[in-house]
């Protein structure tokens, strides 16, 4: 029982991080209908910049408490990633609007390679440890343990998701975003500046990515130039699982994927009589994805699209 609960908790932490990144994918997809393959790199930059800021503040002898240092790091990383997101859209996507669907995919992949190499130039090829400034004090819940840090991660994720939902549903910007996603041409006739809205989408998604990157780095105590790849892949899987383009779907898909993964990793050994071990964890994400899409071809919460001629 306690193993079960423990895995659920672990999955919840992992899943809320996935959800945060998945929101970045799904927002861009909802508005432009394309996969932002460079989003994982934004997540990586968020983690790296924060670690750099925190370490240099510590070296300079700034005597702030741990969480404050991370906050300062985030305050640098978020604008940096927003700028990066804006640049990605301007360089890789805007010039190719209206071109064949695969062209922006290739530019995004090219940019992804470039960003990884830039990260190597700045931070090197090795794993960078996250400074041990956050306490990993644990709390016990019904026999399962969770660190306060992880609890904070889940809480912050939920807060951000609710905030994003409010922005999209209640504000003028959100209304313009929804209008653009339904029909950019008509939206622009109604006075919506489509270019600004698209930029805003990338910027907001990148800010979420930066925060998620820091969460990943604190949760695993390290960061790496290649970290954006796998986490981006999983988050994208989560977005598709929930029904890409749908904000609620991204959250549901992310949390579901996190829980399935950690449950799978915890139980696969018992289920198969020791034949398959926990290193098959990654298979779960994809196996579940394939099964879900066979039965619901547009994701869990995705709308059924009519075939358009």
């Amino acid at each position, binding site marked *: 029982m306690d193993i079960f609960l423990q895995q659920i908790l672990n999955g919840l932490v992992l899943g809320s991080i996935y959800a945060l990144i998945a929101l970045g994918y799904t927002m861009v*997809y909802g508005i432009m209908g394309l*996969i932002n393959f460079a989003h994982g790199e934004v997540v990586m930059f968020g983690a790296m910049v924060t670690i750099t800021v925190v370490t240099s503040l510590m070296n300079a002898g700034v005597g702030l408490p741990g969480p404050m240092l991370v906050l300062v790091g985030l305050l640098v990383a978020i604008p940096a990633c927003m700028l990066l997101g804006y640049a990605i859209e301007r*360089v*890789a996507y805007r*010039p*190719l609007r*209206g*071109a*064949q*669907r*695969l*062209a922006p*995919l*290739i*530019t995004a*992949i*090219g*940019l*992804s*390679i*470039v960003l*990884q*190499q*830039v990260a*190597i*130039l700045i931070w090197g090829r090795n794993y960078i440890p996250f400074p041990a400034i956050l306490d990993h004090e644990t709390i016990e819940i019904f026999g399962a343990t969770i660190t306060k840090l992880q609890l904070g991660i889940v809480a912050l994720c939920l807060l951000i998701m609710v905030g994003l939902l409010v922005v999209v549903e209640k504000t003028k910007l959100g209304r313009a975003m929804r209008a653009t996603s339904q029909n950019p041409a008509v939206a622009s006739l109604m006075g919506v500046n489509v270019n600004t809205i698209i930029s805003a989408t990338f910027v907001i998604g990148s800010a979420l990515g930066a925060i998620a990157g820091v969460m990943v780095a604190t949760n695993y105590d390290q960061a790496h130039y290649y970290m954006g*790849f796998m986490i981006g*892949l999983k988050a*994208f*899987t989560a977005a*598709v699982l929930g029904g*890409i383009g749908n904000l609620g779907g991204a959250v549901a898909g992310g949390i579901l994927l996190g829980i399935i993964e950690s449950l799978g990793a915890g139980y696969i050994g018992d289920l198969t009589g*020791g*034949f*398959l*071990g926990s*290193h*098959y964890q*990654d*298979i779960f*994400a*994809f*196996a579940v*994805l*394939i099964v879900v*899409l*066979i039965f619901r*071809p*547009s*994701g869990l919460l995705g709308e059924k699209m009519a*075939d358009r*001629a």
Partner: protein
Amino acid sequence: MTMDTNKKLAVFIASAIVLAVLPFVVGSTLGNSWVRTIDFALLYVMLALGLNIVVGFAGLLDLGFIAFYAVGAYSFALLGSPHFDIHLPFYISIPLGAGLAAMFGLLLGTPVLKLKGDYLAIVTLGFGEIIRIFMNNLNAPVNITNGPQGINLIDPIQVGGVSLGKAIEVFGFNLNPVHMYYYVFLFLTVVVVIMVYRLQHSRIGRAWVAMREDSIAAAAMGLNIRNIKLLAFALGALSGGVAGGLFATFQGFISPESFGLLESIMILAMVVLGGMGHIPGVILGAVVLTIAPEILRDVIGPLQMKAFGKMLVDPENARMLLFGVAMVVMMLVRPEGMWPSKRRAAEFKDAKKG
């Protein structure tokens, strides 16, 4: 008319001669490592042409194509190495591997028949990752793939008792393995090229295009969408499987590392950058994307030494950086690809005007 035929014949003979002497010219001027690069370029041509059937002709975005390459490579390795101590000759294990890859193509194709666009893309990506994870982990409790260590000492191709794995002397010429494999690869590449050309202009090829442009209208015209979709997956996988088997025997060693997502993406980039759906374009894309990084490798280091007197940037790093930049710039300058078909180029022109 006769002029045209003569011209075609002349081009054909000229390219045949160039291709026949290429490894010796390159080998004696630039060194044998470049012949090796050309061998790899041929492998990638086969892979890109296989993926082009799925993506270019049938319009199904496949991000897990490398899985079929892996299936071909692993089946050759398991049937021709000390790992299981089975040593089947290549003319059995390569067709077997190709057939198995085609079966995996059907295996992937069947459940995803209903999926469209990016949903299809992500499922194929997941399929590719699943195959790789299995190859990485199927070393316990029963050791099938030898896990992350990979399989070593894979048999070289043997033709009439002559092993292509060792250098031999013919009429005073020193024939290296890279030279001999070149001709094997060239032969099979030509076979694949002929196959895709014939397919493109056949009923099946036209059915693929019809499905790509509008699957509902195609179905209304009486096309069996399910069958032609599956056929696209299977035939694409087939040529991936052939390339995989050749890769295994050429390298003598394979491990799951060679079959990651990045590799799938590179092959997709070859197809798109070359000119999706246009066979000469795809071949050009594969050759350019294989050779460009190698040229950069040779150029960047010395150039830095000359310009700055020291290594400012790690050459490997600078090489990938430039490669990424080149991919972005090429796509921005020519979104239709380097050498698109006339039809596609015209479509792009229209789209720009409208």
